[in-house]
């Protein structure tokens, strides 16, 4: 099977007056049709910037400076072509025909992501009218159908509702309905459950999985919550400071982690089986300031397996260590590495 989306050595930097922030600095991963890929990492690890790069939504002073984002695009005639999204003009026609139609976004804050002065129906129908060749009446019908699909009670009336008239859960459902309006093949969910309570969170996750099967979509799911990843993802990408530390199928990541960072992350999940009074292990130190990235492997100052003269000298490449997992760590890679450039 060929991937739907292939991100290769993606680098997105932000050029501020104070210096360059390398928010994403060499990220590789693939998304196959119908697959749920979870991207995990702490705040500031570049997961949101990665998916914004995929949608070409990076705003100034940020810029994609290197790498490829290959996507299997269906053009107007229905032919399938491989297109490099990284090369597209962020305001151009091509990317706009892909956004919302082939790649859709579910944002982090459903409250703030709907305009408060336009009805839900207006905003959902707008997404439909932008990409599908239908009249307003047909767009309304599709919008009602989508709202019905996401479990919105009284979908016809809700078309005239404003986002602030809905509860948090319903609001996120309306957002999902809007994202699914044009049947995208890739859905990007940027921490879609962060802003809602745990019960509703579970409902929304189940809904997403059901819809994913119905529509046979691929999903990139971004979260810092490992529990959510375990529930939803088929494949996991672990990021730290703009780089992929480890990637692999969800079972392998959870039961057979290879990278010291992944191991440390999993150890810091509170366990019910831990003896009472035992301290919860944490990762030493804290995330470095964006302007003072460590040399070499970005994780080396906090790493238990730090090898002086190796880890701080060069950046390890992401390499397959078996037929399932890839890791970027010198514990597994003694071959010459990419040397720190700048």
């Amino acid at each position, binding site marked *: 099977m060929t991937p739907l989306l292939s991100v290769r050595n993606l680098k997105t930097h932000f050029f501020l007056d104070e210096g360059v922030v390398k928010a994403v600095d060499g990220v590789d991963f693939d998304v196959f049709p119908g697959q749920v890929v979870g991207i995990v990492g702490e705040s500031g690890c570049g997961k949101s910037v990665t998916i914004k790069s995929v*949608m070409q*939504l990076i705003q100034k002073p940020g810029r994609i400076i290197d790498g490829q984002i290959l996507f299997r695009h269906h053009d107007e005639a229905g032919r399938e072509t491989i297109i490099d999204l990284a090369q597209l003009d962020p*305001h151009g026609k091509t990317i*706009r*025909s*892909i*956004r*919302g*139609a082939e790649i*859709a*976004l579910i*944002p*982090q*804050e459903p409250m*703030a*992501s*709907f*305009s*408060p*002065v*336009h009805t839900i129906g207006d905003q959902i129908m*707008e*997404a439909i009218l*932008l*990409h599908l060749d239908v009249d307003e009446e047909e767009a309304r019908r599709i919008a009602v159908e989508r709202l019905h699909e996401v479990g919105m009670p009284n979908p016809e009336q809700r078309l005239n509702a*404003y986002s*602030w008239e809905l509860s948090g859960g319903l609001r996120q459902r309306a957002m999902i309905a*809007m994202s699914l309006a044009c049947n995208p093949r890739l859905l990007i969910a940027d921490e879609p459950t962060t802003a809602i309570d745990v019960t509703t969170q579970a409902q929304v996750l189940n809904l997403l999985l059901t819809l994913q099967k119905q529509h046979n979509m691929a999903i990139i799911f971004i979260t810092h919550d490992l529990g959510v990843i375990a529930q939803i993802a088929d494949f996991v990408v672990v990021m730290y400071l703009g780089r992929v530390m480890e990637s692999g199928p969800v079972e392998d990541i959870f039961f057979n982690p290879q990278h010291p960072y992944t191991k440390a992350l999993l150890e810091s999940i509170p366990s019910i089986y831990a003896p009472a009074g035992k301290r919860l292990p944490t990762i030493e130190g804290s995330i470095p300031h964006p302007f003072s990235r460590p040399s070499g492997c970005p994780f080396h100052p906090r790493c238990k397996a730090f090898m002086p003269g190796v880890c701080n000298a060069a950046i390890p490449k992401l390499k397959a260590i078996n037929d399932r997992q890839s890791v970027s760590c010198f514990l597994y890679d003694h071959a010459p590495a990419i040397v720190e450039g700048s």
Partner: protein
Amino acid sequence: MTQYIIKRLLLLPLLLFIFSVFAFFIIQAPPGDFVTSYIAELAASGSSMDQAQIEALREQYGLDQPLIVQYFRWVGGMLRGDFGVSLDWKRPIMELIKERLLLTVLLGAATFIISWSLAIPIGIISATKQYSFIDYFFTVFNYLGVATPTFMTALVLMWLAYSYFGISVTGLFSPEYVDAPWSLARVIDLLKHLWLPALILALDGTARLARVMRANLLDELNKPYVEMARAKGMSEWRLVLKYPVHLAINPLVSTIGWYLPMLFSGSVIVATVLNLPTIGPLLLRSLTNQDMFLAGVIVLIYCFLAIIGTLISDVLLAWLDPRIRMEA
């Protein structure tokens, strides 16, 4: 919505009553009255009045009555449509202000239209192209607009118009139409004269309005709903005009209410420089001469316009913003 407007209209008489009390007492607040300043004026020109004449004058205008009585006489007259007589001009107030009021409102409307149709696009362009050449250009233009007193602009433009085009731009009518009855020719003549004072007054407002619009829009442009609209595949201009501009304009709409009265009092100097037959200079003169009934009527008209203006802006805002509609 209709209910909301009716509710607001029912409040109108109460507000007017309160304002009439305020207007009356503010006018009465300075020491002395019209007769005192009349005597001072006479003294300045070398003549004088004896005490009996002064008392007679006071009695004639009812200035010897207690304030309460004076107030009810004044209000009672206005309710019957009689605005009283100007002490200074010795003419009915209605006659004095009728045309001036119309011209002031016309000038205000023209100024409003010019400044909004300049300021909103300037604000939008400055915000969407932040820190670009055009943004800096408009910033400089705006600072000049805010910093230059309007009467100065008026003087410079008058001089330019006169020395380069040989036209006199003062007043709102050509000499032959000043006292002519209303006709199509007079209206055309008015339009020929109106644009310049309107433009001068608008430039000041435009600068402020454009700065506020730019700041509001910059706030809105970083909101998640803008990114969401982009993620839907909308073109940049279409989404900017539909979403953030709509939200950025709302706070400005709520300022329309103050606009008319502000323009009235703010345009006094320009109106004096350009010799405009508007209400501003009339108010200034009535205040300096303690022509209290005239001043009172004008202040009350200001209040009335402020109330109407606020009502209009509230209705507009409710129409534009469903969140406000629901609260109402």
